């Protein structure tokens, strides 16, 4: 590379360096601060620890211990799992069943019904809250796990059904023909042929839906926000910001706890995640 070209590319590197800074520094600050004592956090900026990061004795795990026990984030973490995993499973199962039905079973109004399902992506969940919480109050589902499982399933359903449909409808017809000749019922065809073939699509939809639910705040606030025994991490951390807005040692540790699982999922399953998030970006 000749010198003028190198010089010409200099601004590009500077620009990218600045960008890298803006994307790394906030998270790095959070991470370091979460291991510092409250006294040190307010007397010196977290960046002052960087020259002596090797000195582990200045750091503490006390903040994590405090938020997980005293501030109830341990419970909230469990609740997040109890909400995300079943919600995701139910929505993937219901969506796969529907996708297979719409793609391969013959019935009147099939096209119209499927279009209706997909068109429901247009409806933002905000429009549905009031009637749904009113009904939940009446049947006792407000502030319960099953209530929020069903809510998450419903709000993700138009998209998950559409995604599964576009995969399942692409399965070669011959497979279904030979299954029918062998006398396979629709249900066993679904279990033995459709589900095993759809594993890659299932993985994408599962991961995307899981992360979406794990990171959700609004649905959780509306359906279980007033019930700390069911409320997930996002609600717990939002409350922590309201009640202890200046206790940075607690806030940073709490925020980091919410990020651990999704970031782990992100790095281990990046390929599926990209596919899922590309497809999922139009969720209503």
């Amino acid at each position, binding site marked *: 590379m000749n010198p003028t070209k190198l010089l010409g590319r200099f601004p590009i590197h500077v620009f990218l360096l600045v960008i890298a800074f803006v*994307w790394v520094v*906030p998270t790095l600050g959070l991470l370091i601060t979460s291991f510092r004592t409250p006294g040190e956090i307010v007397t*010196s*900026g977290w960046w002052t620890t960087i020259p002596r990061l090797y000195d582990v004795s200045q750091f503490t795990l006390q903040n994590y211990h405090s938020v997980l026990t005293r501030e109830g984030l341990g419970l909230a973490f469990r609740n997040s799992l109890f909400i995300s995993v079943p919600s995701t499973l139910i929505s993937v199962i219901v969506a796969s069943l529907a996708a297979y039905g719409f793609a391969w079973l013959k019935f009147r109004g099939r096209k119209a019904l499927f279009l209706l399902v997909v068109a429901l992506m247009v409806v933002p969940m905000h429009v549905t809250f009031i009637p749904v919480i009113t009904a939940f109050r009446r049947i006792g589902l407000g502030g319960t796990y099953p209530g929020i499982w069903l809510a998450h399933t419903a709000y993700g359903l138009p998209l998950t059904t559409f995604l599964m449909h576009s995969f399942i409808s692409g399965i070669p017809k011959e497979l279904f023909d030979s299954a029918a000749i062998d006398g396979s019922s629709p249900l066993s065809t679904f279990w033995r042929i459709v589900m095993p073939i759809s594993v890659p699509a299932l993985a994408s939809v599962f991961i995307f839906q899981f992360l979406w639910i794990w990171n959700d705040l*609004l649905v959780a606030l509306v359906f279980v926000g007033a019930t700390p025994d069911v409320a997930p991490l996002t609600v717990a951390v939002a409350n922590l910001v309201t009640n202890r807005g200046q206790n940075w040692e607690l806030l940073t540790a709490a925020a980091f706890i919410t990020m651990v699982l999704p970031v782990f999922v992100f790095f281990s399953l990046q390929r599926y995640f990209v596919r899922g998030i590309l497809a999922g970006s139009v969720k209503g």
Partner: protein
Amino acid sequence: MARASRVSVVFRGLWRVPQVLWSCTRRTTSFVMRRTQERPWLFFVGPALLILGFFLVYPSVATVWRSFYGRGATLFGDIRYVGLDNWRYVFTHPTMTGALRNNALWVGVFTMTTVGLGTALAVLLDRVRYERILKSVIFVPAAISYVGASVIWRFMYAYRPAGMPQIGVLNALVVALGGEPQGWLLLRPWVNNLLLIVVAIWIWTGFCMVIMSAAYKNIPKQLLEASRIDGANEWQTFRKVILPLLWPTATVVGVTMVVQVLKTFDVVYVMTNGAFETEVVANRMYKEMFNFRNYGRASAIAVALFLFLVPFMVVNVRRFTGQGGAR
């Protein structure tokens, strides 16, 4: 005692479910059995249709209806018909016009920046050797919650009075450059709103970059070569060759961003809860619903949000179902 009541709260709903399901099942089992034998499709699409009907179709209609009735935290009983009062509130009350203005600001600034920056990064990163690592770094925030990101940036904006050691990066920079520390989130109405938007930009730029990068790498390299051989410099090549080819993808991504940001709620809820003129429509709807128990106004706000979203979502859904659109 407290423990017992906590447990009962959690499981009250759990035992209700089998109870409700059982009573429904008993009544419908024979009916469904007969039906599914003649019509297996009912077994497959039935659950989805039931859930969507209960959670999306019926509530949408009920909310539109409710938006013409007065305050109160009930859907049907004990409410008064008020005509267009709630709708007048949505479009004329200062709180709401402020929220609408902020939503417009969010849509404009957020969409321009995420799509613009995402495109720039996609093109520039293609020319450097550390592309992979920097892409990962910028994309990671897509996996974390708005709540987590809001805490991260609230700490970036942290303020302490002049003379005390600054612990937020932004104020530390300002002081190091000889300025006065600022309570950033109190600087209404422009600075604080823009700083809230930064949080969302930080989350979504990676998403835009990934899609724009995929589109950029699809452009045949011969096209760029040809343009350079014809004597075009890098900027001209970008303006006249790359940009027109990326434009359709950029519109698709832009529409997606608009849909995301019109519904913006979490960042505002966590960082300011709408104080200091940072209110947005979704946050206002939440307040009317839970803090003021005014279901009439909350319904009107929700339906208004729905109406704003429709044109953008229609574009997106049409593209999805392959009935036109840019791809």
